Protein backbone atom coordinates (compact mmCIF):
# COMPACT_ATOMS: atom_id res chain seq x y z
CA UNK A 1 0.00 0.00 0.00
CA UNK A 2 2.66 2.42 1.08
CA UNK A 3 4.72 1.39 -1.93
CA UNK A 4 1.85 2.34 -4.22
CA UNK A 5 1.41 5.62 -2.37
CA UNK A 6 5.13 6.33 -2.64
CA UNK A 7 5.05 5.51 -6.30
CA UNK A 8 2.05 7.71 -6.96
CA UNK A 9 3.55 10.54 -4.91
CA UNK A 10 6.69 10.41 -7.01
CA UNK A 11 4.51 10.28 -10.08
CA UNK A 12 2.51 13.31 -8.99
CA UNK A 13 5.66 15.29 -8.19
CA UNK A 14 7.22 14.36 -11.52
CA UNK A 15 4.14 15.42 -13.43
CA UNK A 16 3.69 18.58 -11.37
CA UNK A 17 7.27 19.66 -12.04
CA UNK A 18 6.81 18.93 -15.72
CA UNK A 19 3.53 20.82 -15.87
CA UNK A 20 4.99 23.85 -14.12
CA UNK A 21 8.02 23.80 -16.43
CA UNK A 22 5.75 23.58 -19.46
CA UNK A 23 3.55 26.34 -18.09
CA UNK A 24 6.56 28.60 -17.63
CA UNK A 25 7.93 27.68 -21.04
CA UNK A 26 4.62 28.36 -22.78
CA UNK A 27 4.13 31.69 -21.06
CA UNK A 28 7.73 32.66 -21.71
CA UNK A 29 7.49 31.80 -25.37
CA UNK A 30 4.18 33.66 -25.63
CA UNK A 31 5.66 36.74 -23.95
CA UNK A 32 8.66 36.75 -26.21
CA UNK A 33 6.47 36.06 -29.23
CA UNK A 34 4.98 39.51 -28.70
CA UNK A 35 8.50 40.91 -28.73
CA UNK A 36 9.40 38.73 -31.70
CA UNK A 37 6.32 39.81 -33.56
CA UNK A 38 7.15 43.47 -33.14
CA UNK A 39 10.79 42.96 -34.03
CA UNK A 40 10.00 40.83 -37.07
CA UNK A 41 7.29 43.20 -38.21
CA UNK A 42 9.78 46.01 -37.93
CA UNK A 43 12.43 44.16 -39.93
CA UNK A 44 9.92 43.35 -42.65
CA UNK A 45 9.13 47.06 -42.85
CA UNK A 46 12.75 48.26 -42.78
CA UNK A 47 12.41 49.54 -39.22
CA UNK A 48 14.18 48.68 -35.95
CA UNK A 49 11.30 47.77 -33.67
CA UNK A 50 11.38 48.04 -29.87
CA UNK A 51 14.93 48.96 -28.92
CA UNK A 52 14.80 51.09 -25.80
CA UNK A 53 13.85 48.69 -22.98
CA UNK A 54 17.05 46.82 -22.27
CA UNK A 55 19.61 45.73 -24.87
CA UNK A 56 17.84 45.44 -28.25
CA UNK A 57 14.58 46.08 -26.41
CA UNK A 58 14.71 42.64 -24.80
CA UNK A 59 12.85 43.82 -21.70
CA UNK A 60 9.93 45.05 -23.76
CA UNK A 61 7.59 42.16 -22.79
CA UNK A 62 8.25 43.02 -19.14
CA UNK A 63 7.39 46.66 -19.73
CA UNK A 64 4.27 45.57 -21.61
CA UNK A 65 3.29 43.35 -18.70
CA UNK A 66 3.70 46.18 -16.21
CA UNK A 67 1.65 48.41 -18.46
CA UNK A 68 -1.10 45.81 -18.78
CA UNK A 69 -1.29 45.25 -15.04
CA UNK A 70 -1.33 48.91 -14.06
CA UNK A 71 -3.91 50.12 -16.55
CA UNK A 72 -7.48 50.78 -15.52
CA UNK A 73 -9.48 47.57 -15.49
CA UNK A 74 -12.66 48.76 -17.12
CA UNK A 75 -15.96 46.91 -17.27
CA UNK A 76 -18.59 48.47 -19.52
CA UNK A 77 -21.81 49.43 -17.82
CA UNK A 78 -24.18 47.39 -19.96
CA UNK A 79 -22.04 44.28 -20.21
CA UNK A 80 -22.79 40.83 -18.87
CA UNK A 81 -20.45 41.37 -16.00
CA UNK A 82 -19.56 37.80 -15.04
CA UNK A 83 -19.30 36.50 -18.57
CA UNK A 84 -17.21 39.52 -19.40
CA UNK A 85 -14.77 38.62 -16.64
CA UNK A 86 -14.92 34.91 -17.38
CA UNK A 87 -14.17 35.13 -21.11
CA UNK A 88 -10.45 35.98 -21.07
CA UNK A 89 -9.87 33.40 -18.37
CA UNK A 90 -11.66 30.74 -20.37
CA UNK A 91 -9.68 31.65 -23.46
CA UNK A 92 -6.26 31.49 -21.86
CA UNK A 93 -7.16 28.38 -19.84
CA UNK A 94 -8.05 26.44 -22.97
CA UNK A 95 -4.97 27.75 -24.74
CA UNK A 96 -2.68 26.54 -21.95
CA UNK A 97 -4.26 23.08 -21.75
CA UNK A 98 -3.22 21.91 -25.19
CA UNK A 99 0.48 21.63 -24.42
CA UNK A 100 -0.16 18.64 -22.14
CA UNK A 101 -0.26 16.01 -24.87
CA UNK A 102 2.62 17.30 -26.95
CA UNK A 103 5.64 15.00 -26.85
CA UNK A 104 8.45 17.47 -26.18
CA UNK A 105 11.16 14.83 -26.26
CA UNK A 106 11.95 11.26 -25.36
CA UNK A 107 13.20 11.01 -21.79
CA UNK A 108 15.29 13.53 -19.98
CA UNK A 109 17.92 12.20 -17.58
CA UNK A 110 18.34 14.74 -14.83
CA UNK A 111 19.72 14.13 -11.34
CA UNK A 112 19.80 10.35 -11.86
CA UNK A 113 16.09 10.34 -12.67
CA UNK A 114 14.37 9.69 -15.95
CA UNK A 115 11.77 12.29 -16.83
CA UNK A 116 9.25 11.42 -19.47
CA UNK A 117 9.01 14.61 -21.49
CA UNK A 118 5.32 14.37 -22.18
CA UNK A 119 2.83 15.24 -19.50
CA UNK A 120 0.42 12.59 -20.66
CA UNK A 121 0.46 10.29 -23.66
CA UNK A 122 -3.29 9.94 -24.10
CA UNK A 123 -4.05 7.62 -26.98
CA UNK A 124 -6.30 10.24 -28.59
CA UNK A 125 -3.73 13.06 -28.30
CA UNK A 126 -4.42 14.75 -31.59
CA UNK A 127 -8.17 14.54 -31.04
CA UNK A 128 -7.65 16.27 -27.70
CA UNK A 129 -5.74 19.08 -29.40
CA UNK A 130 -8.45 19.53 -32.03
CA UNK A 131 -11.10 19.47 -29.32
CA UNK A 132 -9.34 22.19 -27.34
CA UNK A 133 -8.86 24.23 -30.50
CA UNK A 134 -12.61 24.27 -31.00
CA UNK A 135 -13.21 25.04 -27.33
CA UNK A 136 -10.98 28.07 -27.79
CA UNK A 137 -13.68 29.89 -29.69
CA UNK A 138 -15.83 29.99 -26.55
CA UNK A 139 -13.55 32.58 -24.99
CA UNK A 140 -13.87 34.78 -28.07
CA UNK A 141 -17.60 34.17 -28.32
CA UNK A 142 -18.22 34.95 -24.65
CA UNK A 143 -16.02 38.02 -24.76
CA UNK A 144 -17.71 39.37 -27.87
CA UNK A 145 -21.18 38.66 -26.55
CA UNK A 146 -20.65 39.90 -23.02
CA UNK A 147 -19.13 43.20 -24.16
CA UNK A 148 -22.55 44.27 -25.45
CA UNK A 149 -20.97 46.02 -28.40
CA UNK A 150 -21.90 45.60 -32.05
CA UNK A 151 -18.34 45.38 -33.27
CA UNK A 152 -17.32 42.90 -30.62
CA UNK A 153 -20.29 40.75 -31.48
CA UNK A 154 -19.44 40.96 -35.18
CA UNK A 155 -15.92 39.83 -34.38
CA UNK A 156 -17.17 36.99 -32.23
CA UNK A 157 -19.66 35.80 -34.84
CA UNK A 158 -17.05 35.93 -37.56
CA UNK A 159 -14.59 34.06 -35.38
CA UNK A 160 -17.03 31.28 -34.60
CA UNK A 161 -18.23 30.77 -38.16
CA UNK A 162 -14.63 30.84 -39.33
CA UNK A 163 -13.69 28.23 -36.73
CA UNK A 164 -16.51 25.94 -37.81
CA UNK A 165 -15.58 26.13 -41.47
CA UNK A 166 -11.87 25.70 -40.95
CA UNK A 167 -12.02 23.00 -38.32
CA UNK A 168 -13.59 20.68 -40.88
CA UNK A 169 -10.73 21.01 -43.33
CA UNK A 170 -8.25 20.77 -40.46
CA UNK A 171 -9.83 17.58 -39.16
CA UNK A 172 -9.89 16.07 -42.62
CA UNK A 173 -6.22 16.79 -43.19
CA UNK A 174 -5.43 15.26 -39.80
CA UNK A 175 -7.35 12.15 -40.80
CA UNK A 176 -4.88 11.62 -43.63
CA UNK A 177 -2.04 11.73 -41.09
CA UNK A 178 -3.87 9.32 -38.83
CA UNK A 179 -4.36 6.97 -41.76
CA UNK A 180 -0.61 7.04 -42.38
CA UNK A 181 0.35 6.37 -38.78
CA UNK A 182 -2.61 4.28 -37.69
CA UNK A 183 -2.70 6.04 -34.33
CA UNK A 184 -4.17 9.14 -32.73
CA UNK A 185 -1.39 9.36 -30.16
CA UNK A 186 0.96 12.22 -30.89
CA UNK A 187 3.89 10.24 -29.51
CA UNK A 188 3.30 7.40 -31.98
CA UNK A 189 2.81 9.83 -34.83
CA UNK A 190 6.10 11.54 -34.01
CA UNK A 191 8.01 8.29 -33.54
CA UNK A 192 6.88 7.00 -36.91
CA UNK A 193 8.53 9.97 -38.55
CA UNK A 194 12.00 9.04 -37.34
CA UNK A 195 12.91 7.94 -40.88
CA UNK A 196 10.93 10.26 -43.08
CA UNK A 197 8.83 13.28 -42.21
CA UNK A 198 5.13 13.21 -42.96
CA UNK A 199 5.36 16.37 -45.03
CA UNK A 200 7.00 14.34 -47.79
CA UNK A 201 3.96 12.11 -48.07
CA UNK A 202 1.46 14.85 -47.30
CA UNK A 203 2.52 18.10 -49.03
CA UNK A 204 -1.08 19.05 -49.83
CA UNK A 205 -2.22 18.06 -46.37
CA UNK A 206 0.50 20.24 -44.88
CA UNK A 207 -0.57 23.32 -46.83
CA UNK A 208 -4.20 22.70 -45.87
CA UNK A 209 -3.27 22.22 -42.23
CA UNK A 210 -1.08 25.33 -42.21
CA UNK A 211 -3.88 27.42 -43.71
CA UNK A 212 -6.38 26.07 -41.22
CA UNK A 213 -3.96 26.60 -38.35
CA UNK A 214 -3.63 30.24 -39.37
CA UNK A 215 -7.39 30.53 -39.37
CA UNK A 216 -7.72 28.73 -36.04
CA UNK A 217 -5.21 31.06 -34.42
CA UNK A 218 -7.03 34.09 -35.81
CA UNK A 219 -3.81 35.15 -37.46
CA UNK A 220 -3.59 37.31 -40.53
CA UNK A 221 -4.65 36.82 -43.29
CA UNK A 222 -7.61 35.27 -41.45
CA UNK A 223 -7.83 37.63 -38.47
CA UNK A 224 -11.55 38.07 -38.98
CA UNK A 225 -12.21 38.17 -35.25
CA UNK A 226 -9.99 41.20 -34.74
CA UNK A 227 -10.16 43.08 -38.00
CA UNK A 228 -8.41 46.08 -36.59
CA UNK A 229 -9.37 48.31 -39.49
CA UNK A 230 -13.02 47.32 -39.76
CA UNK A 231 -14.04 46.16 -36.30
CA UNK A 232 -11.57 48.20 -34.25
CA UNK A 233 -10.24 45.14 -32.48
CA UNK A 234 -13.30 42.93 -32.78
CA UNK A 235 -14.14 40.78 -29.81
CA UNK A 236 -11.70 42.51 -27.46
CA UNK A 237 -12.66 46.09 -28.32
CA UNK A 238 -14.17 46.69 -24.87
CA UNK A 239 -11.41 44.97 -22.95
CA UNK A 240 -8.59 46.76 -21.19
CA UNK A 241 -5.76 46.07 -18.78
CA UNK A 242 -4.82 42.46 -18.09
CA UNK A 243 -8.10 41.11 -19.45
CA UNK A 244 -7.01 42.36 -22.85
CA UNK A 245 -3.57 41.05 -22.01
CA UNK A 246 -5.03 37.61 -21.42
CA UNK A 247 -6.70 37.63 -24.82
CA UNK A 248 -3.57 38.73 -26.62
CA UNK A 249 -1.44 36.33 -24.62
CA UNK A 250 -3.75 33.42 -25.31
CA UNK A 251 -3.52 34.16 -29.02
CA UNK A 252 0.24 33.90 -28.87
CA UNK A 253 0.01 30.71 -26.81
CA UNK A 254 -2.33 29.31 -29.44
CA UNK A 255 0.16 30.22 -32.11
CA UNK A 256 3.00 28.53 -30.25
CA UNK A 257 0.95 25.36 -29.69
CA UNK A 258 -0.22 25.31 -33.31
CA UNK A 259 3.35 25.63 -34.51
CA UNK A 260 4.42 22.81 -32.22
CA UNK A 261 1.56 20.62 -33.43
CA UNK A 262 2.51 21.35 -37.04
CA UNK A 263 6.09 20.33 -36.28
CA UNK A 264 4.84 17.16 -34.58
CA UNK A 265 2.40 16.15 -37.29
CA UNK A 266 4.37 17.02 -40.41
CA UNK A 267 7.98 17.70 -39.50
CA UNK A 268 8.92 14.81 -37.29
CA UNK A 269 8.54 16.45 -33.89
CA UNK A 270 11.78 15.90 -31.98
CA UNK A 271 13.41 13.99 -34.82
CA UNK A 272 15.94 15.56 -37.08
CA UNK A 273 18.14 13.72 -39.57
CA UNK A 274 21.63 13.30 -38.12
CA UNK A 275 20.62 14.34 -34.61
CA UNK A 276 19.62 11.89 -31.92
CA UNK A 277 16.90 13.25 -29.61
CA UNK A 278 18.57 11.38 -26.74
CA UNK A 279 21.72 13.48 -26.86
CA UNK A 280 22.61 15.85 -24.02
CA UNK A 281 20.76 13.59 -21.62
CA UNK A 282 17.59 13.84 -23.69
CA UNK A 283 17.72 17.62 -23.96
CA UNK A 284 18.29 17.44 -27.71
CA UNK A 285 14.68 16.42 -28.36
CA UNK A 286 13.08 19.55 -26.88
CA UNK A 287 15.73 21.70 -28.55
CA UNK A 288 14.91 20.25 -31.97
CA UNK A 289 11.17 20.54 -31.45
CA UNK A 290 11.39 24.08 -30.14
CA UNK A 291 13.61 25.21 -33.02
CA UNK A 292 11.08 23.79 -35.45
CA UNK A 293 8.20 25.46 -33.74
CA UNK A 294 10.08 28.78 -33.52
CA UNK A 295 10.69 28.52 -37.22
CA UNK A 296 6.98 28.09 -37.79
CA UNK A 297 6.19 31.00 -35.49
CA UNK A 298 8.48 33.03 -37.73
CA UNK A 299 6.62 31.74 -40.79
CA UNK A 300 3.29 32.71 -39.20
CA UNK A 301 4.58 36.22 -38.58
CA UNK A 302 6.12 36.36 -42.01
CA UNK A 303 2.74 35.50 -43.52
CA UNK A 304 1.04 38.08 -41.33
CA UNK A 305 3.29 40.87 -42.53
CA UNK A 306 3.00 39.81 -46.16
CA UNK A 307 -0.62 39.07 -46.89
CA UNK A 308 -3.59 41.40 -46.60
CA UNK A 309 -6.69 40.22 -44.77
CA UNK A 310 -9.21 38.13 -46.64
CA UNK A 311 -12.67 39.55 -47.05
CA UNK A 312 -15.23 37.65 -44.98
CA UNK A 313 -17.01 36.08 -47.97
CA UNK A 314 -13.70 35.18 -49.62
CA UNK A 315 -12.74 33.45 -46.40
CA UNK A 316 -15.91 31.39 -46.42
CA UNK A 317 -15.49 30.59 -50.12
CA UNK A 318 -11.94 29.45 -49.51
CA UNK A 319 -12.95 27.33 -46.54
CA UNK A 320 -15.99 25.58 -47.88
CA UNK A 321 -15.37 25.52 -51.62
CA UNK A 322 -11.63 24.92 -51.78
CA UNK A 323 -10.11 23.65 -48.56
CA UNK A 324 -12.73 21.05 -47.62
CA UNK A 325 -12.95 19.46 -51.11
CA UNK A 326 -9.15 19.50 -51.31
CA UNK A 327 -8.90 17.89 -47.90
CA UNK A 328 -11.29 15.14 -48.98
CA UNK A 329 -9.27 14.60 -52.17
CA UNK A 330 -6.12 14.47 -50.08
CA UNK A 331 -7.71 11.90 -47.81
CA UNK A 332 -8.75 9.74 -50.74
CA UNK A 333 -5.31 9.99 -52.35
CA UNK A 334 -3.71 8.95 -49.08
CA UNK A 335 -6.08 6.02 -48.82
CA UNK A 336 -5.32 4.96 -52.38
CA UNK A 337 -1.60 5.34 -51.74
CA UNK A 338 -1.77 3.14 -48.65
CA UNK A 339 -3.87 0.60 -50.53
CA UNK A 340 -1.55 0.32 -53.54
CA UNK A 341 1.92 0.99 -52.15
CA UNK A 342 1.55 0.02 -48.55
CA UNK A 343 2.99 2.48 -46.05
Amino acid at each position, binding site marked *: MSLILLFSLGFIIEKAVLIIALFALTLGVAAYSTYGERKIAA*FFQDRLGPSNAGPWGLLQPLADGVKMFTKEDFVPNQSERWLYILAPGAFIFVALMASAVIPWGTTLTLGGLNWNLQVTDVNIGILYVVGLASLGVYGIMLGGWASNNKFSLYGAIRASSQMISYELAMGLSIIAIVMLSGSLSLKTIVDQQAGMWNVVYQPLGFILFLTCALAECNRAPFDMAECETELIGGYHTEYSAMKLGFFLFAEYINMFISCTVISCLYFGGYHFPGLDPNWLGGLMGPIILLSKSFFFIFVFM*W*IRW*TLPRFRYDQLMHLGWKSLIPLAIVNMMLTGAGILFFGK
Partner: protein
Amino acid sequence: MQLTQRSKNVVKKEMTFLERIYLPAIAKGMWTTLKHFFRKSNTVSYPKEQREFAPVYRGWHVLKRDEQGRENCTACGLCAVACPAEAITMEAAERERGEEHLYREEKYAAVYEINMLRCIFCGLCEEACPKEAIFLTDRIVPSDYARQYFVFGKDMLVEGVEPDKRVDVTVRQKHITEKNTQPA
Protein backbone atom coordinates in the same frame (compact mmCIF):
# COMPACT_ATOMS: atom_id res chain seq x y z
CA MET B 1 -8.14 64.68 -70.65
CA GLN B 2 -5.15 62.60 -69.74
CA LEU B 3 -3.03 64.11 -67.00
CA THR B 4 -0.37 61.44 -66.51
CA GLN B 5 1.02 58.43 -68.32
CA ARG B 6 0.57 56.26 -65.28
CA SER B 7 -3.13 55.46 -65.45
CA LYS B 8 -3.95 51.83 -66.10
CA ASN B 9 -7.01 50.44 -67.77
CA VAL B 10 -8.69 48.08 -65.36
CA VAL B 11 -10.06 44.95 -66.96
CA LYS B 12 -12.38 42.70 -65.06
CA LYS B 13 -11.45 39.22 -66.11
CA GLU B 14 -11.78 35.79 -64.58
CA MET B 15 -8.71 34.71 -62.64
CA THR B 16 -6.66 31.93 -64.15
CA PHE B 17 -6.15 28.70 -62.25
CA LEU B 18 -2.73 29.72 -60.98
CA GLU B 19 -4.14 32.99 -59.74
CA ARG B 20 -7.08 31.27 -58.09
CA ILE B 21 -5.00 28.95 -55.95
CA TYR B 22 -3.18 32.04 -54.60
CA LEU B 23 -0.02 30.07 -53.77
CA PRO B 24 2.31 31.43 -56.51
CA ALA B 25 1.26 34.97 -55.68
CA ILE B 26 1.74 34.30 -51.96
CA ALA B 27 5.20 32.86 -52.60
CA LYS B 28 6.08 35.93 -54.66
CA GLY B 29 4.85 38.26 -51.94
CA MET B 30 6.74 36.39 -49.26
CA TRP B 31 9.92 36.59 -51.30
CA THR B 32 9.46 40.35 -51.52
CA THR B 33 9.00 40.72 -47.78
CA LEU B 34 11.93 38.41 -47.10
CA LYS B 35 14.17 40.68 -49.13
CA HIS B 36 13.04 43.56 -46.94
CA PHE B 37 13.75 41.49 -43.83
CA PHE B 38 17.46 41.51 -44.58
CA ARG B 39 17.59 45.07 -45.80
CA LYS B 40 19.23 47.71 -43.65
CA SER B 41 16.79 49.66 -41.56
CA ASN B 42 16.16 53.29 -42.43
CA THR B 43 15.46 54.23 -38.84
CA VAL B 44 17.32 57.07 -37.18
CA SER B 45 16.91 56.59 -33.41
CA TYR B 46 15.96 60.21 -33.08
CA PRO B 47 16.90 61.62 -29.72
CA LYS B 48 20.06 59.51 -29.58
CA GLU B 49 21.26 60.15 -33.11
CA GLN B 50 20.22 63.13 -35.13
CA ARG B 51 20.37 63.64 -38.82
CA GLU B 52 22.15 66.63 -40.25
CA PHE B 53 19.80 69.31 -41.47
CA ALA B 54 19.91 70.45 -45.05
CA PRO B 55 21.21 74.01 -45.57
CA VAL B 56 17.77 74.98 -46.82
CA TYR B 57 16.23 74.14 -43.43
CA ARG B 58 14.79 77.21 -41.75
CA GLY B 59 14.16 76.93 -38.02
CA TRP B 60 14.55 78.97 -34.83
CA HIS B 61 16.08 82.38 -35.56
CA VAL B 62 19.31 83.59 -34.07
CA LEU B 63 20.54 87.16 -33.64
CA LYS B 64 24.26 86.99 -34.27
CA ARG B 65 27.11 88.69 -32.47
CA ASP B 66 30.44 89.54 -34.09
CA GLU B 67 33.79 88.05 -33.12
CA GLN B 68 34.14 90.42 -30.18
CA GLY B 69 30.73 89.46 -28.85
CA ARG B 70 28.92 92.63 -29.95
CA GLU B 71 25.37 92.38 -31.32
CA ASN B 72 25.25 92.86 -35.07
CA CYS B 73 21.71 94.18 -35.15
CA THR B 74 21.29 97.93 -35.60
CA ALA B 75 17.50 97.92 -35.40
CA CYS B 76 17.13 99.23 -38.95
CA GLY B 77 13.77 97.45 -39.20
CA LEU B 78 14.33 96.02 -42.69
CA CYS B 79 13.54 92.52 -41.43
CA ALA B 80 10.26 93.70 -39.93
CA VAL B 81 9.37 95.39 -43.21
CA ALA B 82 10.32 92.31 -45.21
CA CYS B 83 8.39 89.97 -42.97
CA PRO B 84 5.21 88.89 -44.80
CA ALA B 85 3.64 87.57 -41.62
CA GLU B 86 4.40 90.69 -39.61
CA ALA B 87 5.91 88.61 -36.90
CA ILE B 88 8.80 90.90 -36.02
CA THR B 89 8.58 93.96 -33.77
CA MET B 90 11.47 95.95 -32.42
CA GLU B 91 12.33 99.08 -30.50
CA ALA B 92 15.54 100.88 -31.32
CA ALA B 93 17.76 102.58 -28.78
CA GLU B 94 20.96 104.62 -28.92
CA ARG B 95 24.16 103.12 -27.70
CA GLU B 96 25.38 104.88 -24.56
CA ARG B 97 28.97 105.52 -23.71
CA GLY B 98 30.52 102.41 -22.19
CA GLU B 99 28.28 100.03 -24.10
CA GLU B 100 30.67 99.66 -27.04
CA HIS B 101 31.48 96.11 -26.04
CA LEU B 102 27.79 95.17 -26.26
CA TYR B 103 26.62 96.66 -29.54
CA ARG B 104 28.60 96.99 -32.74
CA GLU B 105 27.06 100.24 -34.00
CA GLU B 106 25.59 103.35 -32.48
CA LYS B 107 22.04 102.10 -32.71
CA TYR B 108 20.76 98.80 -31.41
CA ALA B 109 17.55 96.91 -30.74
CA ALA B 110 16.46 97.39 -27.16
CA VAL B 111 13.49 95.11 -27.75
CA TYR B 112 13.43 92.53 -30.50
CA GLU B 113 10.51 90.14 -30.61
CA ILE B 114 9.51 87.44 -33.07
CA ASN B 115 6.11 85.89 -32.66
CA MET B 116 6.84 82.25 -33.46
CA LEU B 117 3.17 81.52 -34.03
CA ARG B 118 2.99 84.19 -36.73
CA CYS B 119 6.34 83.39 -38.29
CA ILE B 120 6.11 81.31 -41.44
CA PHE B 121 9.86 80.61 -41.54
CA CYS B 122 10.21 82.01 -45.06
CA GLY B 123 13.68 83.43 -44.44
CA LEU B 124 12.97 86.84 -45.94
CA CYS B 125 14.29 88.54 -42.79
CA GLU B 126 17.76 87.10 -43.23
CA GLU B 127 17.71 88.07 -46.90
CA ALA B 128 16.70 91.61 -45.99
CA CYS B 129 19.28 92.04 -43.22
CA PRO B 130 22.17 94.26 -44.32
CA LYS B 131 24.27 93.50 -41.24
CA GLU B 132 24.17 89.66 -41.28
CA ALA B 133 22.52 89.89 -37.89
CA ILE B 134 19.60 87.49 -38.23
CA PHE B 135 19.71 83.92 -39.46
CA LEU B 136 17.34 81.02 -39.46
CA THR B 137 19.09 78.01 -37.93
CA ASP B 138 18.64 74.25 -37.85
CA ARG B 139 17.32 74.39 -34.28
CA ILE B 140 13.72 73.31 -33.83
CA VAL B 141 11.42 75.77 -32.06
CA PRO B 142 10.47 74.14 -28.76
CA SER B 143 6.84 73.44 -28.04
CA ASP B 144 4.97 75.04 -25.17
CA TYR B 145 1.55 75.21 -23.57
CA ALA B 146 0.41 78.81 -23.95
CA ARG B 147 0.49 81.38 -26.72
CA GLN B 148 2.36 84.02 -24.77
CA TYR B 149 5.44 81.79 -24.51
CA PHE B 150 5.82 81.83 -28.27
CA VAL B 151 6.72 85.52 -28.44
CA PHE B 152 10.48 85.16 -28.38
CA GLY B 153 12.36 88.14 -27.05
CA LYS B 154 16.05 88.85 -27.16
CA ASP B 155 16.69 86.31 -24.41
CA MET B 156 15.56 83.56 -26.78
CA LEU B 157 17.04 84.99 -29.95
CA VAL B 158 20.46 86.53 -29.29
CA GLU B 159 23.27 84.03 -29.17
CA GLY B 160 25.56 83.81 -26.14
CA VAL B 161 28.93 85.50 -25.90
CA GLU B 162 30.82 82.42 -24.78
CA PRO B 163 32.31 80.33 -27.61
CA ASP B 164 30.23 77.26 -26.69
CA LYS B 165 27.00 79.26 -26.73
CA ARG B 166 27.60 80.62 -30.23
CA VAL B 167 25.29 79.32 -32.94
CA ASP B 168 27.06 78.13 -36.05
CA VAL B 169 25.42 79.50 -39.19
CA THR B 170 28.27 79.15 -41.68
CA VAL B 171 26.44 76.54 -43.77
CA ARG B 172 23.32 78.66 -43.90
CA GLN B 173 25.34 81.80 -44.62
CA LYS B 174 27.07 80.10 -47.53
CA HIS B 175 23.74 78.91 -48.84
CA ILE B 176 22.26 82.41 -48.77
CA THR B 177 25.29 83.93 -50.48
CA GLU B 178 25.12 81.31 -53.21
CA LYS B 179 21.43 81.90 -53.64
CA ASN B 180 21.88 85.67 -53.87
CA THR B 181 24.73 85.51 -56.36
CA GLN B 182 22.93 83.08 -58.64
CA PRO B 183 21.72 84.62 -61.89
CA ALA B 184 17.95 84.87 -61.83
